[in-house]
């Protein structure tokens, strides 16, 4: 039971990180109608920035704040220089262009930081584990991730539901031509949304960095997971992204923890280990395929275009 709770918390933690990535992705997808394969690169860049800034300033928190700001700036520049010119093109051109950006950023990171990965070390007070239930010790840093990402999700909710900018974002998600026709400076709005998405992706990258190593291509697999979240949730829906992110995070983590054990009831140890490994990696895609077969536009389809 304790093991289950621990895995459940891990699932929530992964889900919250996926939400940070998926929120930006779904906004960019839903509002600008842009398929952005370079979103994972921003995640990677956020992690590299954080590792460098943390080294420079000798402070994890300061490094993290600087990294988020820097990734935001990269996002703004990227939108103005390149992404903006892609909106009017087809989805296929988006894939081509942002795939090019993905290659470019991987190479740029190799040029600047070298081919070897980096590590982002935590301040000592976050290294320990606390006893959250009798007999269950859980790493402080993972709790920090859950707490901080929940707070960011709350802030994002407040921003989208409670401010004028958020109103424009929501309006853009349901009918962007009309928002433009009503005299809103849609160009600036798009740039801001892309920057916001970049900052969220960079933030997700730097939060994940101390758990995994910071390396080239680290954004590629999680990008696909974020796309799964966006698709399950319904493109353009932040609420959908939140629900789907938790679902995907839990399915993935709990699947990895329990599927091999479940298979062992029926199969030999080695067979269940290898089959379990692939089956648990497949789980989120199975869930997505099932959701799309039943609901071809995701769980929370944004208002029809």
């Amino acid at each position, binding site marked *: 039971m304790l093991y289950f709770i621990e895995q459940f918390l891990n699932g929530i933690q992964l889900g919250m990180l996926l939400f940070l990535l998926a929120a930006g992705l779904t906004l960019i*997808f839903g509002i600008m109608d842009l*398929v952005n*394969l370079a979103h994972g690169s921003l995640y990677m860049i956020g992690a590299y920035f954080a590792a460098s800034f943390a080294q420079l300033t000798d402070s994890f928190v300061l490094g993290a704040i600087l990294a988020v700001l820097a990734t935001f700036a990269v996002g703004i520049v990227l939108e103005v220089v*390149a992404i903006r*010119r*892609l909106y009017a*093109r087809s*989805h*296929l*051109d*988006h*894939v*081509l*262009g*942002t*795939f*090019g*950006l*993905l*290659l*470019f*950023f*991987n*190479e*740029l990171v*190799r*040029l600047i930081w070298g081919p070897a990965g980096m590590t982002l070390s935590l301040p000592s007070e976050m290294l320990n584990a606390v006893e959250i239930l009798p007999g269950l010790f859980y790493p402080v840093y993972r709790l920090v991730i859950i707490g901080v990402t929940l707070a960011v999700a709350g802030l994002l909710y407040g921003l989208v539901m409670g401010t004028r900018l958020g109103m424009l974002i929501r309006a853009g998600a349901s009918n962007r031509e009309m928002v433009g026709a009503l005299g809103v400076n849609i160009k600036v709005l798009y740039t801001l949304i892309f920057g916001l998405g970049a900052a969220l992706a960079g933030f997700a990258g730097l939060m994940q960095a101390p758990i995994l190593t910071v390396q080239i291509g680290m954004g*590629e697999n999680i990008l*696909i997971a974020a*796309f*799964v979240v*966006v*698709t399950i949730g319904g*493109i353009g829906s932040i609420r959908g992204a939140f629900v789907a992110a938790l679902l995907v995070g839990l399915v993935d983590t709990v699947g990895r923890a329990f599927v091999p054990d479940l298979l062992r009831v029926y199969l030999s140890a*080695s067979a269940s280990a*290898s*089959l379990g*490994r*692939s*089956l648990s*990696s*497949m789980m989120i*895609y*199975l869930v*997505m*395929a099932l959701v*799309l*077969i039943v609901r*071809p*536009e*995701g769980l929370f389809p944004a208002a029809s275009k």
Partner: protein
Amino acid sequence: MKHLLECWRGSGLNPRRAVNAVVLAGLALMPVYAALTGDAFLMTLLTRVVILALAALSLNLIMGFGGMVSFGHAAYLGIGGYAVGILAKEGIGSGFVQWPVAIGASAVYALAVGALSLRTRGVYFIMITLAFAQMIYYVAIGLDRYGGDDGLTIYRRSQFGGFVDLDNKVLFYYLCLALLLAGIYLVWRLVNSRFGFVIRGARSNERRMRAIGFPTFRYKLVCFVIAGAMCGLAGALLANHTNFISPAMMHWTRSGDLMIMAVLGGMQAMFGPLIGAMTFLLLEEQLSRVTEYPNLVLGPLLLFVAIYVNGGIDGLLGGGRRG
């Protein structure tokens, strides 16, 4: 051959036809050049170009002509490759068994994926095809007996009982080239048949096609299966070419590569996927010779094409008026 020449029927010589002719002549004569200069690497590289062109061609059949943007096409390369590799490992070395199994398995997989995915539209279709390809990718990682994550070396190429010796590099190259040309001919015949007109009609306005009585779902599904089978054959060729299979050949970025080849060459052109595959792979190769950071150039180049060029290289050559 007469039919093949009709692929560029019309009158006169335009840049598009000139480029196609030069590319074909170059591919046909390349082994002579390689033999004269002793450049074995060029031979290997161009065999790869031809095989991946076949894969990109099959993708273009559904994506360019059918409007079905599949982001999981590398899965068929993997299925075709694994069919060859698994059978070879189990002692069945005959190409007469391996290749039909590669094609058949890819077709069956395409039938299942297509039947489920074609219910969705637009970006959701892109994503669900990606999801199925990821599943196959993880299945391959779980195949411990066949190398798991590390992949599997194929010690003997497919045996054709003395008819064709695939270990002969020149012969293998010409076999791949012949299959590619046969594939281009097949796609050309398909696209210009009644079947092809239904597929293209469904791309521009599916509702109208259904309203005038065409069961578009079935047509699209058949098209999807043909493309899958064709790419499965490319996978069997690729496994024979590299003597190696691994899950990496199904990674989602490989699917992205195939899409780039098709888009780069020009999706409305029969020779587009070939030109795209050739441009992409040769550029990658050349750039990595002159710089340690080839993608620093290649990436922005792709971005530039995506932003400013309509219809890929074929569009630059003035072929964009069709379709």
